Each structure stands twice: as C-alpha cells, then as structure tokens.
C-alpha cells in the first residue's frame, strides 16, 4: 500500500501572463495534517484548485490512493472524498444546521418528501463526531462564527471526506475557539483517519498542529513534505519569503501628546452599544480587541455615520459634533474607515486600480463643472501607489486581478490619498502574507508618528500588542476595560484575556 493518499508530482499550470505552478510537488500522508504554506501569489490557491478539480494542471500527475486520476470538476473531487472548507462561509444562513449538513444528500420519505426526522438523526451523528452540542434545527444564522466553521467541517465529513482542505480556518476565530478547533482536527485525524491539508498564514498554528510542511514560493517548491520537527520558525519564514523575517519592533517616537482629537462620552447606538467612553489623542494608536461579534466594527460604523448613535456625545477637536454619513465623516471631519472585508466593502473589484485608489479624492481634486481627468487623478494618487509598492502592471489593471496583499494596499492607499486625520483600520492583515503584513505594520506606525490618529481593530493578539499604544477590550457591545500597552506580550495578553472574561 502506498502511504500517500494524495500526490501531485511535477505539476505545471500557467495562466495568461503568469506561471502559477512550476514543477510543484505535493504529497499527503494518510491520517496526517499537512501545512501548505506560501505567500499570497505563491501558487497555494492554484494547487488547491487542482486538488479540488476546479482547474486542471497543464502537465504533471495527480495521484489519489496510488492511482493516477483526472478531475474534471469539483464533483469528481467529491467522489474521491476530497472536500474543501473555504475562508468564505458556504452555508445557507437561513437553513437549519441539519438541512445544511444533509443538503447534498437529503433523506426522503417513501412519498419522496424530505424526511426531517431523518435529517435530525443523521446530522446529529456528524455533529457528535465534532463534539458539537447544537440542535440540528438551529438556524445557521443564529450560530457563532466559530460554530459555523465547525459545521462546515461536519458537512465536509458527512460527504465522507477522507481528504479535507482547510483554507485559513482560524482567520475569524478567537484563540480559544482556534484551540477547540485544533483539538477536534487532531481527533478526526486520529479517529476517522482523515487527512488534512491546512493553509494558514499563522505560523504558530502550523507548529501547533501540523505533521508535515510543504512551502511554495513563486510556484515552485521551497520544500516538499518536510517533517515539521526539522524546522523552526526562522527556517520556515526563510523558506517562504526567501530571506529572514524582519520583526517589527514598535519604534514609536514616544507619543505623549495630550491633544485629544476624538472623544466619545457615554455613547449608545442603535445597534446596542452602551456606555462607550473613548479618548483618542493626536498620533495615538488605540486598539480595539475582542472576539468576533464583540461589536467593534459595528461601533466604528456608528462613529462614521453608517449607523446611528442614539445617545451620548461625540467630540472632535473639542467640539460636539454629529456625523450623519460616511460622506460627512470624510469630508467634514477627515475620518476614514478601512474595512475588514476588502472585497465587499473596501474595493470595487470590477474597476481598475486608478478608480479604486482615487474614489475618496474625486471631490477634492475636481475643477470647474466637476472636471476630473485620469491625469489629474494619477498625479494625486500615484505617489501613494508607489509609496506602498503596489505590484500592478498598470494603473488600468482590474483590482480583481491583483493578489490579496496588493488589494489590501490599495484599500489603504485610497485613505492615505484622502489625507485623513483619524483613520480606523479594521483587521488590516487578515489573509495577508508575512512580507506585506510586516510592511503594513511599519506603515501604521509611520502614519501615527506623522500625526494621524489611528483606531485599530484586530483579532490578532501579537499584532495588537506590537502596534497599539493602549488597548480597549470589548465584549458584547460594551467596553470591558482599557489596557495600557507596554508591548510585553505575556503580561499584556493575560490582562486582555482577564478583561474579556469579566
């Protein structure tokens, strides 16, 4: 018997203008967890798409359980027990958990109607494997993000998946939730004999749960099925980016300005926030930490006028103000919001680099009768595009053709171009490769040093502790406490966790 349940050897795949995979090799051992790493654009997604039958390799072999196979579409992959859990949720929110789990395989009664009892019975079986104590009749929309993630895995298992691909499964989970997920993953590997391909940008997790590592760089193997025990963080990073990691040390010029630029006093919102008090000084970085659903993003959306503040005071530069819309936040108060969801709320994917970067400045640069030319726009935004080292063949490239890291740079660039005084940055590095992540961290610090006041929302504890000056811990749409950040990871993180659980 072959010890590999899935093998890809010397696969090549080209797209117009790009060689996405160049002699890539990948071997998945039975009942193991295999990390697939690489920066954005290294070819991970392409490899996954070949495994799941979305793309076909130009050359090279795909071997499943020792036999060479051809996958023509995702259905073929499912037949071989290959299942993928994406970053984006693929559950139907208005269906129940049970219906979602059994969707591809609905049990029917003798009359051909759907047998809801049977759905409950069968789906419970799968939920039990994952130690999930959920009533199958619960609507998916009522679940927490973490539970949804687990339901997706349960769904994949219910399709008799023997090979499970997890694409950044923890990007929206808290540390505890991730821990639970990991112990379950280990359990299904051990007890069900499932093999897992694990894609993540968080190296801590890789060392925590993976057995083998394959690293791709520019479509080629930087290492193939290396035993994780032979690697350490330094080595792994070097494999991924081809040089040593530059650790961002918070080298802030000490910012003890007492120049309060924004203050919230006893703010209540229509979304349910209560007793929000916050003071932001010039050049300060305030962090908002909390679990997903703590109401951080929602609070900021109320601040910029997307949703309503129902009570309390918002004070900007000493004056009490009302912000009615993101438009007035930007134009009157110079507040910008960089969304966590860059594809949905941040960028216009079907438009080009130039239009996306300049969307915030058209009103500023227009001449008589609203005249705005591409030339005027380029003059305004080109400095920011090149300052951020955005990799794009031209300003007329569609945003959807850029890699995730470059897309994120564009969603930052458009707010730099707008020249904001207060910048709200929501989860700036989710799904971003290490190099770009370090770059964005440096940029945030530089912005603050240059006089911008920043509110940073992040669920990435190391990121929060290396960047923020003080950290506000939120839970359940309220503020639980404020932690002065001395950048010492252990003491600060334990204080944060204390506040979360009060």
């Amino acid at each position, binding site marked *: 018997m072959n010890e590999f349940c899935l093998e890809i050897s010397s696969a090549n795949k080209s*797209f*117009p203008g*790009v060689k*996405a995979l160049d002699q890539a090799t990948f071997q998945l051992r039975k009942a193991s967890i295999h990390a697939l790493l690489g920066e*954005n*654009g290294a*070819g991970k*997604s*392409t490899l996954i798409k070949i495994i799941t039958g979305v793309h076909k390799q130009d050359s090279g072999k795909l071997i499943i359980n020792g036999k060479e196979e051809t996958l023509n579409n995702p259905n073929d992959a499912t037949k071989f027990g290959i299942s993928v859990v994406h970053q984006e949720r693929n559950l139907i929110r208005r269906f129940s958990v049970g219906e979602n789990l059994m969707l591809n395989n609905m049990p029917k009664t003798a009359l051909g109607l759907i047998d809801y009892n049977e759905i409950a019975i069968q789906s419970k079986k799968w939920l039990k494997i994952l130690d999930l104590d959920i009533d199958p009749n619960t609507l998916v929309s009522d679940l927490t993000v973490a539970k949804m993630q687990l339901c997706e895995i349960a769904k994949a298992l219910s399709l008799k998946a023997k090979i499970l691909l997890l694409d950044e499964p923890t990007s929206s989970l808290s540390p505890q939730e991730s821990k639970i997920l990991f112990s379950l993953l280990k359990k299904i590997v051990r007890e069900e004999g499932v093999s897992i391909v694990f894609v993540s940008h968080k190296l801590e997790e890789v060392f925590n749960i993976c057995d083998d590592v394959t690293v791709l760089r520019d479509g080629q193997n930087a290492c193939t099925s290396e035993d994780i025990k032979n690697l350490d963080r330094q080595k792994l990073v070097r494999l991924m980016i081809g040089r040593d990691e530059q650790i961002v040390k918070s080298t802030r010029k000490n910012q003890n300005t007492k120049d309060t630029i924004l203050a919230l006093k006893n703010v209540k919102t229509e979304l349910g926030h209560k007793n929000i008090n916050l003071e932001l000084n010039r050049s300060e970085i305030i962090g908002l930490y909390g679990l997903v659903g703590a109401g951080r993003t929602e609070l900021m959306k109320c601040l*910029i006028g*997307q949703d309503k503040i129902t009570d309390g005071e918002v004070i900007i530069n000493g004056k009490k103000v009302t912000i009615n*819309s*993101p*438009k007035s*936040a*930007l*134009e009157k108060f110079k507040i910008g*919001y960089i*969304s966590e969801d860059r594809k*949905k*709320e*941040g*960028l*216009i*994917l*079907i*438009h080009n680099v130039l*239009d996306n970067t300049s*969307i*915030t400045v*058209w*009103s500023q*640069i*227009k001449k008589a*009768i*609203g*005249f*705005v*030319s591409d030339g005027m726009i*380029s003059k305004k935004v*080109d400095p920011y*595009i*090149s300052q951020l080292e955005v990799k794009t*063949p*031209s*300003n*007329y490239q*569609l945003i*959807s*053709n850029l*890699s*995730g890291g470059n897309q994120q740079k564009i969603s930052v660039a*458009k707010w730099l171009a*707008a020249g904001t005084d207060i910048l709200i940055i929501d989860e700036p590095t989710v799904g971003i490769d290490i190099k770009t992540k370090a770059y964005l961290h440096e940029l945030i610090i530089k912005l603050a040093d240059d006089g911008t006041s920043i509110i940073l929302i992040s669920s990435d504890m190391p990121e929060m502790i290396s960047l923020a000056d003080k950290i506000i811990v939120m839970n359940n749409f309220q503020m639980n406490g404020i932690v002065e950040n001395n950048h010492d990871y252990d003491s600060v993180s334990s204080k944060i966790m204390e506040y979360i659980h009060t």
Partner: protein
Amino acid sequence: MNKKIPNFIYTNQFGLLCLVLIFTLIFSTSTDGFTSRFNIFALSRVIAIDIMIGLAMMVVILTGGLNLALGAIGVCAAMFGGWCMEVLGIPIIPSILLMLGMGSFLGWINGIITVKTGVHSFVVTLATMSIYFGFMTMLTEAEAFRRLPELFTDFGSAKLFNKYVSPLLLVSVATCFALFYLFRFTDIGRKLIAAGANPEAAELSGISVNRMFIYCHMLSGFLGALAAILLTTRIGAAIPSMAGQLGMDWLLPAFLAPVIGGTLLSGGKLSVFGTMLGAVLVTLLTNGLYLLDVGEFWIRFFLGIILLLAVLLDRTREYFTLKSVIVS
C-alpha cells in the same frame, strides 16, 4: 507607471462597428432602396430616438436596476409638452424645458421610492409605469395634441447633409458626447459608476449612494423626455399611444441597445458609445428585414432572440470581468 489602454480592436464597440458595417453591406446589396436618400433619412430619424431611449435605460441599468416606466415617462412628458404648447400657448423653448423637467420629476419619484423602500426598481417602476400612464390618460382623456407650433414640428422633418440626415440624429449624438463627458471626466459621473458597481464600498468611501441612485433615475427620466421630444417633432403631434400601451413599445429597444453595447446588467460598468452602436445595429436590422419583406411578427421574433443573445453575452462578460482573478 506605464499607461496601457486596451487596443480599440479588442473592444466590444469595435465588434459592433464591424457588425454594423457587415449588415449595411448585406442590406445594401440584397435590397432595393436601403441606401436610398429617403431610407437613410428615415433610418437616421429612428436611430436618433432609439439611441436616446437606450441611453435613458442605460443610466438606470448602471445602478443594477431597471426603468420599466421609461415609455410611460416619455409619453407623459410629450403630452405635457403638447398641452403647454397647444393649450397654454407657452413658447417652444420654455415648453421643451418644462417637458425635460417633467421627465426628470417622474424619474425622481422612481428614484426616491426605490431608495427609500429598498424595493428593487423593477417592481417600483412596474407600478409607476401603470400609475403615470393611467394618470396621463385620465387627464388628457386620451386625446392627442395635433396642433403643435410649426417651428417645432419642422425640426423633425428637416433634412441636413444633402438631405440624408435628420437633425434629430445630431441631438442624440451630441447627447452621447455629453454623457461620455459626464461619466468619464466628472467627479459626479465617476461617483455614479462607483455607486452602481459596489454600493457598500462606495458608501463607506464617502459617496452618498442613495443620492447617486436618485440622480440616475432623474437622468433616465430626463433622457426619456428628450426621446419623447424627438418623437413628437418626428410625428408632429403628441399622441397617448405614441409608445404603445403603457409605453411598453419602448422597452425592447431600451434594453437591446445598452445590453448589446456592453453595459453590465448587474451595474457598475457602462458604454455610452456601445449603446449608440447597439441602437444603430438594432434599427438597421429591423429596417433591413422590413425591406426584405420579413413580416412584422418575425422581426419581433428576431429582436427577442437578439435580446436573449445579448443577455447571454452579458453573463459571459460578467464572468470574465470577475473570474479573471487568476492567482491569489
């Protein structure tokens, strides 16, 4: 940063231009009278109106919506203008301005209802189509205004360029240039497109999307009224049935031109000159088929098929704009 604008050869417009030339060639060889001075003049008058109707629909499709009330708005504007000129004796220029105002006002109503209720404009304009048309029929008692000022109707029958071209076509082409300028070179035009492409992102980037959507509906009403003015000068009278029952005769050309021309049905991408060429192509086909003695019903059949093909084209276009994500 090096600039790279796609070659004209690869654009949708170039493809349309080729089709227009091919069909012109086919019809001029296979039919008598396609290239006659009379036919070309008649074509130019019809094309002018179809372009305008197409543009009027295009600016609402830009928002990802529809304006089914377009024809009703046009007829209302025409009847209102007829009443102003014939009954109230208001001079031509102010009457025209009033008609345009009426069109914009009716479009504004569509916009405000769509934005405030959040109901899809398909449903809203389906309702207002009936309301506008019904109201108009009630007020006018379905009577036409046939004694319009001569100067006004003369414009519709005037002939330019060795009597080959109607001045109506010039109005439409000028409107195309004006819209191209709006969408390509003004901040408001860029905001309209951004709002249509991704309302959430546009809103968070400081654009008031609701206002932009209302503008689009107003512009649609304005252009609809302009189309009605051209039509009124052409037939020399304002008639309640000039756009068919409920103004629905306008809908097919209204959709055909922008969709063939490359405007994305889901919003956020448009082509002004594509719409123009789309209207030319459709009118050319209809006219050519008439001259080939193809029956009226068959022509409708063909136009329906063309619309379906154009929508398929739209789907693939959307696919290629979104799925061109290759490596991530």
